């Protein structure tokens, strides 16, 4: 661990890493993590708490260590506040209205609020419709996380805590993926290229390849790009479908009985049952349309567009433009042609 370099020579700062300190850290080097619920939850909570506490504090002070990761992580703050605000804009003033106006404005505002929730949920979870099949079919988990140990400049000469942990994804950047983290070390007892061997096998490039990593890396890049594209487009279409679902009339039955007071057992039970009943009825009404036949076509159009974008996205990921390496490299390289090695 690097300790701060003091400008005052009289301080006699020790220019060496303190081994004892290193042991206290959760990670002392960039570490690949398992992509499971527990990790995702832990990372989510870490990012969320930092986004609302540490990072704004650092940012508002103009801390010289503030970085792009923190800025991006803080991006969830406007999302959350914005969602709450959007709900408030359509609901808060209603309580001041006369009963009839309130009755008219109420369901619309509540549908809007429900729409905000469905937007967020649909956008977040619909990504799995692309990433999970891609993971199954190719062995490439585009959401594979790792913990990055970040060394910062000390704030002052007494600042010895100059490390921070950032949570990134291995394929966060398609230009600079963290290939290095995917190689197995000797301690694991697995071949160095075990990860790449597995992907190569899944992609049908064969087994026992000499340089599976070199064969697979361009394919992985392509998969990551296409998966990101499919995620970006489909998640918003699913989000739109979520909003459309929230705008169905049957939800009004749910709003009439809904309560968040879970300690009132009977009422809360009624709320839960009304929610699922309204959800089913709303799905039906969304699919078959309410009133005009246009709403039926629009509803189905939106649903099929969302479904189609996820499905076509996965199909596009699987239809690789890269040629499978079944041939020896000597046969691929044309000897008469000039090549530039980069």
């Amino acid at each position: 661990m690097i300790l701060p370099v003091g400008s005052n020579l009289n301080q006699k700062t020790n220019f060496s890493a303190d081994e004892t300190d290193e042991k206290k850290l959760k990670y002392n080097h960039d570490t690949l993590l398992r992509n499971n619920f527990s990790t995702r939850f832990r990372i989510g909570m870490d990012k969320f708490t930092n986004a609302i506490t540490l990072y704004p504090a650092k940012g508002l002070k103009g801390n010289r260590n503030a970085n792009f990761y923190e800025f991006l992580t803080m991006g969830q703050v406007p999302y959350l506040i914005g969602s709450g605000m959007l709900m408030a804009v359509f609901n808060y003033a209603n309580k001041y209205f006369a009963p009839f106006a309130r009755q008219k404005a109420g369901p619309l505002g509540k549908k809007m609020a429900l729409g905000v929730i469905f937007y967020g949920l649909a956008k977040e979870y619909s990504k799995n419709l692309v990433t999970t099949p891609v993971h199954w079919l190719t062995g490439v988990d585009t959401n594979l996380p790792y913990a990055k140990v970040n060394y910062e400049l000390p704030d002052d000469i007494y600042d010895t805590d100059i490390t921070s942990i950032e949570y990134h994804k291995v394929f966060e950047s398609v230009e600079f993926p963290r290939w290095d983290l995917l190689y197995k070390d000797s301690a694991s007892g697995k071949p160095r290229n075990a990860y790449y061997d597995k992907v190569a096998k899944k992609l049908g490039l064969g087994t026992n390849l000499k340089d599976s990593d070199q064969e697979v890396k361009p394919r992985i890049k392509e998969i990551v790009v296409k998966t990101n594209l499919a995620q970006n487009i489909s998640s918003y279409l699913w989000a739109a479908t979520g909003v459309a679902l929230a705008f169905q009339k049957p939800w009004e039955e749910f709003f009439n009985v809904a309560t968040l007071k879970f300690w009132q057992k009977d009422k809360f039970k009624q709320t839960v049952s009304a929610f699922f009943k309204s959800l089913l009825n709303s799905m039906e009404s969304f699919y078959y349309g309410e009133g005009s036949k246009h709403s039926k076509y629009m509803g189905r159009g939106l649903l099929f567009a969302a479904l189609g974008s996820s499905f076509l996205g996965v199909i596009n990921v699987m239809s690789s433009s890269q040629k499978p390496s079944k041939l020896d490299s000597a046969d691929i390289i044309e000897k008469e042609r000039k090549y530039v090695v980069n």
Partner: protein
Amino acid sequence: MVTNLIHNFIHTQNTPASKKEKPKFDIHHELKNKTFMRPLEGEGRLIRSNIFDAPAIMARSAFYDIKALNSAVKGEANDHQLGKLNDLGMKIGGLGIAGYLFYKRQTPMTKLMEFVGLGSFFASMALWPKIAIQIPARIIHGFNVQQQYEDSMGRKKPFFQDPQFLPWDLYSDEEINKIGDRMGIPRNIKNRREFIQEKMKKIAIQNNTLWMLTAGFATPVMSALICNQLEKPLGNFLSSKRNKQNNHLINHFKDYVPKHNTVINKVNKILSINQNQPLSEDLIKELANAMTENLVSRNATNNLIKDLEKLFETQNYVINSNSVNAIIKDSKKALKGVVTDEIIEQIVPTPEQLTRYFNDEKGYYLTELTPAQIKKIFHELGGKIRNTIDDYNKNNPQNSITEKQKSNIIKKLISQEKSPVMNGLRLEQYSVLSGNNQKVIRKIATAFNNLNNQLFTVEKYIFNQLGEAPETIIADYWNNTIDTIVKAAKIKPEQLEKARGDRLPVANLLKSSFDKIASDKTTYKAVLTQIASQISKINGLIKKVDVNDDFLKPTGTSQLDKLLDTIFNGFTKEIGTIVDLKAGEMNNILNELAQSVKPYSFPYSSNGTFKDLYKGMVRQRLLGVKSSFYRIINALDLHRRLALGDKEYMHGLRLDNLPRETKEEIVDFAKRSGISAHSADFFTKFFNSINADADEYDVTDIWNRKGYNIYRYFDEHKTINRIEMPQDKTLFESVMKLQYQDRLLSETEDILKPFNDMLTEFKKYRDDIYYKVGNLHYIEKIHHKTNPDGMCDLNDKVIFELLGAAPDEVFLKYGKQTFNTRKWLSIFGKTGGILLGVTVLAQFLFGKMKLPKPIPRLRNPQKEPDKEKVK
């Protein structure tokens, strides 16, 4: 080697000055000689754009997005392109939401607002950092904290996005120094450029954080405020567009008639599955339903059923399975005892055999047969039966039918008119869906189809002009007029908000406001001119030549009436080409829909034809709206007449006879009834609290002071000694005369004159109310409701239309809406304002850094070499 400076100098003097050649750049040479290899010169640049570059930037950005999408589909996109695709996805999703909700909304305005909402949301996301962060920061700190740059690859990025990677080389020294000067950083400090950069970085980090913290609050609020502010101009724009479209529609009606084949298709479907089937009661009902499904006329279907039944009534017979079964069953029954059962079974055919005979051999099956044809078939069957008996005898010589038996069989089956065979042949009497009948039905269906298509367009026109729905021409006019009245009368929104709880406070507010207006000649003129000018706009929006109430000022047949006549006459004519109208065919449906039995009269929709319902509905809507606003003009005129106290205009008060207290009661009630009275109040001739023991000797006039009526006795809040008086003749007569019979003020007439027909209409309106509603002897009876035109030209509907809406109710609703809008605006407008203030003020605290110590001035330059020692 020591350089000989003098030698060099001489050499330059002797050498002729050569033109400096451009350095040659040879890639192969450069590659071979690796010592020259160095990074290429950076081509990044700071982007300096203004609002005029926005279209070009947007176009370039859209092109970049398409390129990024293309690369991503191929799996070749880079990080920057993938980032752009996220924005693209967000826009597509946003359009999906707006598109879906567009179809869920009912009116053009609400539909449009879905896209306005989407646009304003994206605009707010982009505008908030510019308004609240970028511009204040530039003013406070002198540089753009949201500066963008283009890298060597042509990718556009925010300069301060990643504080750990800032391409400072894109800023020249001059620019940095200028920013430093603006920040007030002394010129003579150590590493001035680095210090300025550090300060800029700090400010940018702080501002970016502030942006993240405030955007969530600001974007929805800003977006909602933008929508709120755009609603009115957009409404006006749509309204004017709709008005133009409607004017075009009524003048080019045929171009707007759709070519839907809804009725034809439905009828064809029914015909195709019922070919040659009997035109039974059910089938006729089905056909009539299909033809009249889209007609809202209540009895159209029943009348058409009656007409079709009559049209296809017939004397002809049809041989069908029922006839066949009846012939066989009854024949067997008749032959019982004449011959043995075995012989009966042999000579009587099976249903299949007989059907085959009628259908395949003779072609009689399921066709309409005249009575003469039936007789012929009957004789043919006689021959057939004889042949069958002969054939039987030939084939069964041991068990043959005797001559006597044969004669009995003939006698039982075919020798008499009421024999089982003849009964069977005459069993079914109806028309079938033969080719000819299908043709007739198709033609009738086409006539209904054409009528439907034309009525669809007429209904669209009527709805857009006068529909009782938001955003129609009449609804927009109504809202604008109420707005104008509130503004002209200088009624403050706060006053309306306070009074919004009930009609009574609103009525008090209006009364005091009208009193104030009426107290001063100039104010009265200004306010009434403003109001009358707005009210008169109705005749421009809904032109009399197109649609007319035909009551207040008849101007001949309007375009709409002509159009309706043409449509229904056309329908009648078309039906006339199919059936014999003179013979009364299709009479019921034509009477129901199209024929005017007698000319309509007030209240217009009286004779009940479908055509007149359209005409009546239009007139009632128009009259109702006009009456509502004329009532307000009348109320203002009354207030002004009373304020002036000129006896010439106050005959209704019977000034010489009535006690002063009663006069005061009448005056106050007249003012109140103009503002609050409903049609029900006119039926009861008003309920009012009066003092039955008024001082009869005091018959003096009511005082007026500075344009206000000053009451000596009457106090509206005092109820002691007062009694409730229903059917008070004196009160009713006086109030009605005072309100509607007494002459209009010349001031009022002068104000209304310039607005074309308004004065004429307004006078007609007053006269009508006085003679129809002010009729003391009229008490509604049941026959007025059931047959309004037959017995009396007055009923509750007429009173309702003439009275219009009570102003206090109109303004009560307006007050509630105003309160809701203002409350919302006050909550979120304040939130937005406070947020903006805090965001701007916070920036004054940003960028605080300790200055480095200035470079000490060297007093003795000779000591300079000492620095070397220090190093």
